[in-house]
């Protein structure tokens, strides 16, 4: 039977510590550098940070 290799899942077998955490899927990793989505997040994060900055002064 053909071996099914999913690169983002390989690190689970590195050690017990890594085996017991969560590792992002290919989709989650793609969204991290998806320019359109990240531009939206850039705007949202800036607004959220400015609110925290405003609350702190």
């Amino acid at each position: 039977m053909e071996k099914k290799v999913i690169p983002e899942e390989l690190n689970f077998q590195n050690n017990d510590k890594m085996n017991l955490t969560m590792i992002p899927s290919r989709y989650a990793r793609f969204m991290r550098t998806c320019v359109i989505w990240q531009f939206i997040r850039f705007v949202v994060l800036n607004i959220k940070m400015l609110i925290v900055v405003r609350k702190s002064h």
Partner: protein
Amino acid sequence: MARLVVLGGGVSGHTAATFAAKWLGSAHEVVVVTPNSQWNWIPSNIWVGVGDMSKQDVVFDLAPVYRKGNITYKQAKAISLNPEGKEGADTPFVTIEYTGQGKEGQTEEVTYDYVINATGPKLNFAATPGLGDANGLGEYTVSVCTADHAVHASHELDRCIEKMQKGERQKFLIGTGHGMCTCQGAAFEYAFNIESKLRKAGVRDMADIKWISNEAFLGDFGMGGLHMKVNGYVVSSKLFAESLYAERNVDWIIGAHVNKVEKGKAHYELLDGTTGVEEFDFAMLIPPFAGVGLKAYGKDGSDITDQLFAPNGLMKVDADYTPKPYSEWKASDWPRTYQSPAYKNIFAVGIAFNPPHLISKPAKSPNGTPINPTPPRTGMPAGITGKAVAHSVCDLITKGEGVQLHEASMAEMGAACVASAGRGLLTGTAAAMTVYPVVPDFDRFPGTGRDTDYTFGEIGLAGHWIKQVLHYLFIYKAKLKTGWTLIPE
């Protein structure tokens, strides 16, 4: 004319001095005493340390900026405080020793009406044998604490990359070099920027990267970690930190007190009392921080250092320093005005003030070795406390004593932190986080100690863009360019 002397020109001191000079105008004098000739945007040192930026990208000369800001600049280090003056003269003064301006080694007594201690930390490499000594960084490890250290680290990293390109496997050890370190965030950034750099160089498969830290769990960051809302859950930063380490295949050792460094070897003790040795080809271990060693003398010349400073060299301010167990820690223990209880015209801001206790839960190994992160006070808290104290001093000078001092408790302020995990306009990532408040307040926010509406974190390209924008924005602000006061701390 009153004189305000600011000791230190880092984020906190620079903020305090520049705002005070602007608010006081030419009617009063602001003096900055700093041993450095250049200002360094320290958060970008990690990019210098992997060769993605040059030293010149993260520093600029202070003298022209202080000329522009109408600030008297003395390139010198503060040696001691005489808060009551000396015999025959009642005016308080600071004794300084020049490190530049053609007066190297000369001492001077600078009188003051108010003094703000923003001397920052002494990088205490000597606390761990082999990590360095009283003169600074040792020969076995690298550092990104200063721009020059980061340049050296980058050269060492290049050597390792060359070896890997020739087929020689390399071990990287990144983290904290002592059980009482702070600044895990900088080491975190450096670890993941190295990982990113090695991937880009095509040698990631030839590298074993390991994290070693005094945190009790990954994602503690000296703040006891943080809880945030994600996809309908409220989760600990531990989960996200571990996820990133596993994703990038960075193994970790936590709860570790590095007690000795030798060539290629770091000896450590863990929270469970066991000991171990980790081998490395390249190591960046953050040193613990201490006060810079300012002394204080009474009018008669007697040593009164213990009245102004804690044994670690950090200045005592209006905090509640009563020793108490973790269960009794309160947000109200933290200082609000940063005024010295001993002398009302002395303040300490940024890293220079002594925190009342840790933020993370205290921990000791069975051998009695304390292994826990000390509280972070860099970045946003340093800037905010510097500005608040500058405001207080300006009010004291212009309106007279008895005015209400401005307050900036770390238990009531938030902080935004952007931790780079690799640089690149379209490929970079960074963890963008905010916490509110920095010091958990379990009375106001039972459960997590923080407001989860304003405590969040996520990793992505947007975070990298924010870190890049902040780099330019804060250097622009520190150079006092048009509109600098509009940029928040």
